[in-house]
């Protein structure tokens, strides 16, 4: 069983393709890649898991990029439920309330900007769990070539 705080207990919920591309198979964590889910749906998924007793490991509003700007979101919850924590439930509920107050933007984001958003989300996630973000990217580039 994965004990709390152990890397084996990290379940990464993400819709950011850069996360599996750089991190898959490089650690003891598990990645649940949901490309079809929106930023908000990732938050909702995380919230429901926290409500179901999973531990929240990273803040759902990581990064200062506003939730109506980037389509990408990664949140880490525990693989195992360790019991409901009401403070964490509140953090999740508040994050969704924050998402809802931003005015939707009808952006047509080009590939380069999407790549920047992916990079920011990925590096914040990597930073949170001491994963070498730069190494992850270069390994990924090698694989791509």
């Amino acid at each position, binding site marked *: 069983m994965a004990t709390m705080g152990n890397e084996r207990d990290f379940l990464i919920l993400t819709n950011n393709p850069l996360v599996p591309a750089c991190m898959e198979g490089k650690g003891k964590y598990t990645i649940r890649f949901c490309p079809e889910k929106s930023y908000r749906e990732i938050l909702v998924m995380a919230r429901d898991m926290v*409500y179901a007793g999973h531990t929240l490991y990273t803040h759902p509003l990581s990064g200062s990029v506003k939730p109506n700007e980037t389509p990408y979101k990664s949140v880490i919850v525990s693989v195992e439920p360790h019991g*409901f924590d009401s403070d964490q*439930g509140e953090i999740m509920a508040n994050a969704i309330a924050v998402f809802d107050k931003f005015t939707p933007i009808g952006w047509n984001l080009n590939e380069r900007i999407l790549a920047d958003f992916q990079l920011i989300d990925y590096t914040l996630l990597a930073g949170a769990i001491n994963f070498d973000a730069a190494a992850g990217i270069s390994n990924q580039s090698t694989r791509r070539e």
Partner: protein
Amino acid sequence: MVKEIERAGIPVVHMCTVTPISMTVGANRIVPTIAIPHPLGNPALPPEEEKALRRKLVSRALEALTTEVEDQTIFEV
């Protein structure tokens, strides 16, 4: 949502698996239930027993509705 019903002047009992959430949303009468996907049932039980369980839970909820409370109260089953 329970709060809006309460605000309209109708006593309401919240049957909910994660009682802390119920507390946060401001429910005053709370009855804890079995599990998120089946709050008022338990698929592991034979049908009669499952229904008996549900009767017990709903009875408790009715009891909560007939009990005066001053503050948020959890009615353990």
